[in-house]
Every structure is written in structure tokens, then in C-alpha cells.
């Protein structure tokens, strides 16, 4: 997905003179050509994320379109007040491309994990949050939203689904229809969820935009009396939207969570190791869903 990010941004740099890329000393090698081709619009600002976000706001106030990129915890958690005040409160547009949400960088330990990003950024009222499931989905979602005048967080992952869907910004997709429960899933978690739900009589709703959350899609597709939320971030991060969707549908489904538990992960290894440790492999998810339905 990171490669696609480079490709997409390189492409737009050529066609949109307003685009400015600011790197936090991350993905610098990947953008080596862009540095050469657009020295006035591609910067390796350095390891100073808070100032980089404010600087990006300054660019945006001067009608440029900033794209800020670094690892998820540094862009979301370290720079949260800058995102809130300088982009949210000032109501200006910009793009924040975080790589390595949740525990993509498992071996780096908890400082480099960021399963709280979506829950945190949902507290910035006009924030858009996009979680693509594949490189192609990132490409189409980024092109659709990068210049929309709103602050947008793109949650990139080092893993992606095998199959891309014709996703649309702000809209959920029905991947499978069933009667016993509605499984809500997001971005790169779809792969495991689809495998887990093979042969199960459940609806699968696939979200690549989680803010704004497509409440209509959930409200009209609540199957049975259960909603199972499979989140690649802290479980419960979407609960407000789930509750509002149920309210819209005038239904009271029980809501079940299959996501990252709210505890620090004091283990290393790779993503697969942590999936197994947190019971988030496809087999685990199937077992958990079967138990619920």
C-alpha cells in the first residue's frame, strides 16, 4: 500500500500544482524520484511531527494541498492538538497519511503501535477517516478526497486484501447477504472476515470510510438482532456510529466486538504472531462469530 501511495502522489504532483508532500523522514527512499522532479513541493521536513502538521496548515491557508506522511502514532497521537486546532477548528483541508496502524510494526513494540488512531481522530468533528483495504482502493479514495477541503486521515496498512472492490468515499459496500447477523468490517480486515464467514448466513458490510460513517448502509442492512463489528483497531472505536445507525433503523441489536483489545501488547514477533495472540486470525474470527450467532 505504501508503494501505491508513492505512485498515486507522484502522479498527482504532476497534474496538481497545489499538492505539497511533507515527509517525517519516512518513505524518503520511496519518493526519491519525486524529490528530484518537484524539489519545491516535496520536502523531508524532519522528525518534528507537531510543527510539520502546523506548517502544513500554513500551506493549506495559502491554498496549497498538504500531504503529511509518517508512522501512525506520530501523526495521530503526537500531533493530535495540531490536527484538532490547526486543521479541524480552522476548517481547512489537508491529508495525513499514516502508515502502520495497529500493530503492523509488531516487533517495534507498543510505542510504534497505534490501534487508537480511529477512535482518537473521531473526536475531531470534521475529520474524514479513510481505511483502504488494498492499494487500488487507496488510489481511488485518495483521488476522490485529497482536494475536498477537509482534513482527511488515510490509515494505510502494510497488509491488504487480495481482492479490490469498487469502493466509493463515504459509502459502505455489501459484500455478502445473510440473515443471522450483520458483520461490519473495515479495510484490510475484510480478507480474514470473508474467509471466516464462508458458508455462514450473515451479511457482510465493508467500510473503507469510517468518518463520515455510512449509517444508512448499516441501518438498512441490520440482519437478525446482532451486529458484529470486526475492527482492525481498538474494539468499540465505531460504537457511536453503530448506535446511531441502530437508532435510525429503530432496532436494538446486540453489538459484539472482534477487534484489537484495549490493552498494551507486550509481545514482539510479526503481525501474524500478534493476530494469533489476540485471537484475530481468520479461524479465530470464525470461531468467535459462530459462537455469537
Amino acid at each position: 500500500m505504501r508503494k501505491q501511495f508513492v505512485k498515486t502522489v507522484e502522479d498527482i504532483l504532476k497534474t496538481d500544482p497545489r499538492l505539497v508532500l511533507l515527509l517525517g523522514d519516512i518513505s524518503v527512499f520511496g519518493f526519491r524520484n519525486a524529490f528530484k522532479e518537484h524539489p519545491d513541493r516535496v520536502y523531508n521536513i524532519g522528525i518534528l511531527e507537531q510543527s510539520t502538521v502546523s506548517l502544513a496548515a500554513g500551506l493549506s491557508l495559502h491554498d496549497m494541498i498538504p500531504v503529511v506522511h509518517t508512522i501512525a502514532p506520530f501523526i495521530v497521537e503526537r500531533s493530535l492538538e495540531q490536527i484538532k486546532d490547526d486543521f479541524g477548528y480552522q476548517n481547512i483541508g489537508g491529508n495525513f497519511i499514516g502508515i502502520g496502524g495497529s500493530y503492523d510494526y509488531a516487533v517495534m513494540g507498543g510505542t510504534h503501535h497505534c490501534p487508537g488512531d480511529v477512535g482518537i481522530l473521531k473526536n475531531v468533528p470534521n475529520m474524514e477517516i479513510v481505511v483502504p483495504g488494498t492499494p487500488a482502493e487507496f488510489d481511488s479514495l485518495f483521488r476522490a478526497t485529497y482536494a475536498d477541503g477537509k482534513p482527511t486521515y488515510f490509515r494505510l496498512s502494510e497488509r491488504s486484501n487480495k481482492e479490490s472492490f469498487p469502493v466509493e468515499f463515504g459509502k459502505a459496500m455489501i459484500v455478502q447477504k445473510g440473515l443471522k447477523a450483520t458483520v461490519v468490517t473495515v479495510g484490510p480486515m475484510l480478507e480474514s472476515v470473508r474467509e471466516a464467514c464462508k458458508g455462514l448466513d450473515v451479511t457482510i458490510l465493508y467500510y473503507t470510510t469510517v468518518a463520515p460513517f455510512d449509517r444508512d448502509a448499516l441501518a438498512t442492512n441490520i440482519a437478525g438482532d446482532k451486529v458484529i463489528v470486526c475492527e482492525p483497531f481498538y474494539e468499540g472505536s465505531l460504537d457511536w456510529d453503530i448506535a446511531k445507525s441502530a437508532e435510525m433503523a429503530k432496532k436494538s441489536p446486540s453489538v459484539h466486538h472482534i477487534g484489537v483489545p484495549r490493552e498494551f501488547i507486550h509481545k514482539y514477533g510479526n503481525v501474524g504472531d500478534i493476530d494469533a495472540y489476540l485471537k484475530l486470525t481468520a479461524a479465530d474470527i470464525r470461531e468467535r462469530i459462530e459462537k455469537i450467532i
Partner: protein
Amino acid sequence: MKHLKRKILEIATKSGEGHISTAFSILEILWVLYDRVLNISPETVSHPDRDRFVLSKGHASIGLYAVLAEKGFITEETLHSFGRFDSILGGHPDRTKVPGVETSTGSLGHGFPMAVGLALAMKIRKQKGRVYTIIGDGECNEGTVWESALLAPHQKLDNLCCIVDYNHSNDRSLVLGDVEAKFKSFGWHTIAIDGHDEEAIYKALTAKSERPIAVIAATIKGKGVKSMEHNPEWHHKSPKPEELEAFLKELI
């Protein structure tokens, strides 16, 4: 100055809000900026080639509002609405509401890096305008101030001028020390002035350099009202209506 300070005291009293003493420490600087330096007027408030001013120490908003009213960006009536529920003028300036306000500030350490971004954008767009920002010595406790101090010379922003309002707000906590030497060592062209001397301010703000310019302005918090000067009690406090007359008499 006396006339502006009188207004500030009046609206602070009326609203029961406002950082008067910090507004008084930068009032001459604000006045020189809007009267003689910035190429901004109520008519050119959205001109793309305009200079930009960022009040990084946004809590001094009451001083900025008084100057904006004096220069016709907002009406006297608006100025006197300061702090009311429906006013466009709050305790911290809001760019989405106030004509002539470029950035919404409030949290310290945000305006300076935004000014760096504005200056960089002007460079990218090959525009001639300059960007000015005022930060406080208390604000210099924030890490982003020093991140920005590193960034601006590195990006060769010769169109940026950062004015440090050195009014010794923070002598009671984290002392800043020789701020001129610090900025100099970060690669800035520095100019130290008496921040209440309008000619010195004008000269510093119109100086040219290949490097970004840091103007270290020695100022007095509460300048002009003897009982407020150097008095931390007045950092965020408004006179009671019955006190106003006495302060107005004290004004120099």
C-alpha cells in the same frame, strides 16, 4: 497608544474578559505592523499577494482587535461586542470570523509553525509577500517554537519575520535566558529592540536579510498602566467597572 489602550481597558471591563497586560506589551508592535508595514487594508483583506500576520500568542487578541477596529477591518460596535455570545471577537482570534485575522490561534506554539508554512507556500508560489508572527517568551517554552526556529533557516525563508515579545511572562517558571543568542545560533538574523519604540520597531520589521529575521522585542507587560506593569496578577484579569476610571487616569 493611549487612545487604543483606553479602548482595550473599556472593552475588557465591559466583557469581564481579556489578557490586557500581554496586549499592552505588543501594542506598539501591532500598531506599526498594521499602520506602516503590512500591505493589508480592509479592501485587500483577501488579496493573494498580501503580507500575512499570525498572532501566535493568540491570548493577546484584545490588542489585535483594537488595532483592527482602528484600521477599519471591524467596526467600533463589533469591537465593543468583544466576548459576547454572538460576537465574532472571542478570547482567542478566529480566522473564520474576523476580517484580517489569518489564523485561529490560542494553544501556544501553533502560530509560529503555521507562519513557517505560510512563508513556505509563498516561496512555492513565488509570491513577494512577507509573513510576520508574534510569539511570547512564555510561548518559547513550547518545543514547536524551537522546531520552527530550526526549520525556517533550513528552508531559507527570508520572507519570514518572527517577533519575540520578551515581556518576562515566564521568569517565574522556565526562564528563557538570552533569546537573541539562541535564535542567532539557530541561523536567524536577529535584531534586538525596545518593543515600545515605534521607530525601532519599524526599522526592524522592514529590515532585509537572506535569512529569516527574529526581532527580540524587550517589552513591559502591562505597559502604560503603572499598577499593571510587571504585575503577574494582571495576566488574565479585567478591571471591575468601579476600577476603570482609576486605570484610565493612570494611562500614559
